């Protein structure tokens, strides 16, 4: 177990290095004028100095080397040059990370708490009212573009809750009412996703022979659903959780700006536009970490749930 995790972590680090390198190179392909707001009025001399101060005049491999050297030896993510001049990136991100993590985690919990029972009940009452109703809800959520229902929820939700349009400024941060709408918006897609897949897997499982044996044994339908079918259906579900968690992170970009949540989501778009390279790299690194850790956790969960999957064999693929 330990050596498997070590191997996986090593691979994950490798993945992160590759992602970072690609992003590092990509952002440096952007036109030079993006780095300076008043590019037209600048003399070539000024431009040269500007580029020099950002370290952009060096050859790419050298820049890359410096970046990784600082990251690894000093944990230094670089310094923001444009978003907030000469402030270390870490300092800018530090207060934002907990906000995003909190939003993401709450959304994950809500999605599981609503999506899994919904899928289970749909499977239990397959072909009956609840199943049709649930399918309708899922289709609706999947068919309507997220941006549309985000706005819808914001508009009617704020009214219903009797709270203002802008929220989650510092003073409302710990007021749970203000979290309801963003978390709900962020969770809807995943609720539909989990419910849909869980229903499908549970229906598949319910035709298996071991279910027949459980019935023969004299187990009641409820027991069969929860003690036998659910866990078997949940194993293939687990692999979707990290991916959907990633989608949540991406979704947060929009949600955070809608509700002016001081998280990292909206930031990425902002700093890409401003060509603040160090900021872009740092945020991509964070998102990639979430993805890699999510995948690792997904695999570990699968191993924990299914005795047939052995770690030693799994080590071979990813």
């Amino acid at each position, binding site marked *: 177990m330990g050596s498997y995790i070590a191997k996986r972590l090593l691979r994950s680090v490798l993945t992160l290095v590759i992602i970072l390198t690609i992003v590092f190179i990509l952002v440096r392909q952007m036109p030079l004028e993006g780095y300076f707001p008043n590019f037209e009025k600048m003399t070539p001399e000024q431009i040269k100095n500007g580029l020099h101060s950002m370290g952009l005049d060096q050859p790419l491999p050298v820049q890359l080397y410096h970046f990784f050297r600082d990251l690894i030896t000093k944990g230094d993510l670089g310094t923001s040059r444009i978003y907030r001049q000469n402030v270390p990136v870490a300092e800018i991100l530090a207060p934002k990370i907990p906000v995003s993590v909190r939003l993401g985690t709450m959304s994950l919990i809500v999605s599981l708490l609503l999506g899994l029972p919904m899928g289970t009940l749909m499977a239990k009452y397959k072909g009956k009212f609840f199943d049709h109703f649930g399918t309708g809800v899922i289709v609706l959520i999947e068919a309507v573009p997220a941006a549309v229902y985000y706005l819808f929820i914001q508009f009617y939700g704020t009214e219903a809750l009797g709270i203002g349009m802008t929220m989650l400024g510092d003073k409302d941060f710990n007021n749970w009412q203000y979290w309801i709408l963003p978390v709900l918006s962020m969770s809807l897609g995943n609720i539909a996703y989990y419910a849909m897949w869980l229903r499908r897997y549970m229906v598949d499982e319910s035709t298996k*022979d071991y279910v027949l*044996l459980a019935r023969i*044994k*004299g187990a*009641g339908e409820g027991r069969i659903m929860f003690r036998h079918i659910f866990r078997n259906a949940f194993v293939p579900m687990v692999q979707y959780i990290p991916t959907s968690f990633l989608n949540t992170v991406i979704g947060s970009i929009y949600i955070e700006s809608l509700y002016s949540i001081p998280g990292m989501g909206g930031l990425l778009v902002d700093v890409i536009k401003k060509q603040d390279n160090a900021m872009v790299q740092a945020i991509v690194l964070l998102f990639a970490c979430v993805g890699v850790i999510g995948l690792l956790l997904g695999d570990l969960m699968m191993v924990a749930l*299914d*005795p047939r999957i052995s770690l030693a064999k799994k080590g071979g693929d990813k």
Partner: protein
Amino acid sequence: MSKNILSVRNLHVKFVLRGRELHALRGINLDVRDGESIAIVGESGSGKSVLNKNFIGLLDQNGFIPEGEIRYYGMGDKLRHYPGAGSDDNGSYIDLTAFKKKEDWLRIRGSEICMIPQDPMTSLNPLKTIGWQISEALLLHKGMRGKMAYEETIRILEDVRIDDPRRRYKQYPHELSGGMRQRVVIAIAIACSPRILICDEPTTALDVTIQAQVLSLLHDLKERYHLTIIFITHDLGVVANIADRVAVMYAGDIVELGLVDEIFFDPRHPYTWALLSSLPQLGMRGEELYAIRGTPPNLFKEVQGDAFAARNPRALEIDKRELPPYFEVSPTHYARTWLLDPRAPKMDPPAVIQKLKELGKEETHHG
């Protein structure tokens, strides 16, 4: 003679398939005696599994019972408030076809009638330990938990001859061989402590030596736990070792019923002849193996006369028109064939069958 524990009376089962009806069981009559072991033989599709699924209420969704009764005597009048309760000269019974709610079956399944399903490889839950799956039965039917359930599970594992039960208890199905999994399924059935145990082709998926072991195990368990065993198979060779009586099924009907010796050494129905003739054990070296020609009748259409007539080269004219009644060969032996009618022309069974008859005589001389 012991009393009946189960009595099937004129049982019909139909399946609805794309708007058409398939008549899978066409008036089955069968008494199962308390403590006996009865084999139901017949080729694939003859309705063996369908018949037995009725006993535990697991008929497929598209099936229904238009007619017939299944009287279960094993609970006395414990269920007297249920619809379908009654009594006859054999005792108080509950008619299993009268159950309306799914929950009603929970009174029967496992604790009264249990079944070992056809495929042991896939019948166990892959994510639960062997021990968990056996103790679940103990919890459901005896309310046992914890240490008590654990010890009882170990005892049952020993009973089904699984070595090192304390280690096996913690293992998962995929860590066990096919024969071992079969034993675990048997252990689960035993843990339910049923009166009737239905074994649906319990050994077809296993190789021959393991088959023999499982059969002898079932034989032992039957004695130790006072089980009534209904043994489904299409292999007559297996039957001789385990059954007291044999019912031969063809196209959803029982065509011949008798003690094991009567069926083996004095078969009367042409279908039984054909089944016996195709036993590889009886063939002569170098002789071509006998195979029954043709296919069973289409059960979407109502069958006229003797269902086997179409495949019987020596069928009588009346076989094609009228369903024969059961003729009594002995008080324990009945066959549904016009050949037993006093008016029928004398017809000798095929040579192989006559040889069997002689074998039978020798055996009674020695025994």
